[in-house]
């Protein structure tokens, strides 16, 4: 399972890559694998305010729809519009081409509530036991 070291993670399987006061967010390799073939992603709109652990996007696979929660609070700066026509990018490349949005972080302290890659790996392994 692919869990990059430079990212932070949530228990709901979202990731955040913090660069200065911005963060790129998406869902993890574990999440995309559990969902199966992704058919549509309802992305947050630029300008929208998102709140940590609150709904920010919805991922549809063939017969399920799953909510995605924001790993950090902030304002959406841009969304990955490539996913509108190519939702499968999330299956192929959850951490790179399959990013969801970039947000301007409202409170950097919130990152303390997230897991690092080692903690997330343990967490995921715990789930499969």
């Amino acid at each position: 399972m692919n869990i990059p070291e430079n990212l932070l993670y949530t228990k709901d399987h979202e990731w955040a890559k913090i660069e200065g006061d911005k963060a790129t967010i998406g869902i993890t390799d574990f999440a995309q694998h559990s969902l199966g073939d992704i058919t549509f992603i309802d992305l947050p709109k630029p300008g929208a305010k998102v709140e940590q652990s609150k709904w920010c996007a919805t991922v549809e696979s063939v017969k399920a729809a799953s909510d995605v929660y924001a790993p950090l609070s902030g304002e959406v700066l841009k969304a990955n519009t490539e996913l509108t026509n190519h939702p499968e990018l999330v299956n192929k490349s959850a951490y790179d081409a399959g990013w969801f949005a970039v947000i301007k972080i409202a409170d950097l302290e919130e990152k303390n509530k997230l897991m690092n890659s080692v903690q997330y790996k343990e967490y995921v392994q715990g789930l499969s036991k």
Partner: protein
Amino acid sequence: MNYIPHTELEKKEMLKAIGVSSVDELFKCIPKELRPKSFNIPEGKSEFEVIEYLKLLSRKNATNLTDFVGGGFYDHYIPAAVDALAGRSEFYTAYTPYQPECSQGWLQAIYEYQTVICELTGLDVSNASLYDGGTALYEATMMAVRLTGRKKIIVDSGVSLIYRTMLYAYTSNLSIEFIETPVVHGQSCREDIYKHLDDQTAAVIVQNPNFFGAVDDFSDIVQQVHKYGALAIASVYPVSLGMLKSPGEMGIDIATGEGQSLGIPLSFGGPYLGFIAVKKEHMRQLPGRIVGATVDKDNKRGFVLTLQAREQHIRRERATSNICSNEALCALRALIYASLLGKTGFQELAKLNYQKAEFAKAALDKVNGVKVKRSAPTFNEFTVCLPKNADEVVCQMINKGFACGFPLGRFYKGLDNYLLVAVTEKRTKEEIVQFANSLEAALCS
């Protein structure tokens, strides 16, 4: 499934299984004062007695009136084939099948119904139908609220009061702000709509033809609405689309309407048919069931329920709507009706309606004291001004064998002398002339 209630023996068995001695004991947790003192239901009657009683009631209705009433529901001819085909046992149920993909015939019918609605409205995606025109307009409004994240709705008061009342009732606990804009000289007041239109507006709702019968081209309104990132919603009369500019051609985002005119008989309270069609970009917010075409593993064409992630059995509380059923049987009637007419038949039907209404306008214009309103073009319905109260005239005309129209004073303040007259393809030249003569006589007396 039968509807024979359980026997005394079965009741005893069930009570025993759950460990209570009587039905009274089962409900004893409900305080006595909250329980009904009596159900006030009379003794049972035999089948024969029930039928005789209902016949007696039905005789209270005025029948055999020549019908000039519209107001959103129209007296169109329904070819016998509609009843014959829709009544077939393979189809005769009001519901979408619960194992839908097992019923390929039904899914194909619904798919074709959706195609008819898309062709008529000029829009990309239709659902499998809704309950009626009012429900459809409510669902369209909520789509706009979800799509824009805004809660202000501008409603033209030319939209039927029935639909507006339903809209306000359904949304009464949702803190949605409605602003009604006036109708001036029969048409939507642009000035007023633009005055209220801003970046907080979710949608502008219009109707074509509007309740006064006036036909409009909303392209200019749509353009303004889109400038503010709002959506344009139009409730339309499907038969008029055989002739008029379609919602799609006007750039409307969501078209809704009452499908009763498409092969469904007039009856008090329905069942009727709501249709809704949207631009493709909005389809994921469309409520209800949608049937899609696909191919199976042998590459044969088949039909499936599609985009189900919108629906409550998957999305739960975040579903687009709590509607999980549709008006399949009425939608089937609409499909059969439209198929029987075909494209040119549908255009001819629209033309006939228009021409007969124009003939009626000319005939009524000659009646002393009657003034036909001509400030806007109309389709098959128009407004006339009478020299006295329209409600009184309606009563007089019933005695002469005519349901002569809808008194506008019932829906609009200050229009007590105005009558809304509808003329469908069923009205003959003779009936229209007779109608004008009887009206003249009624006004003289």
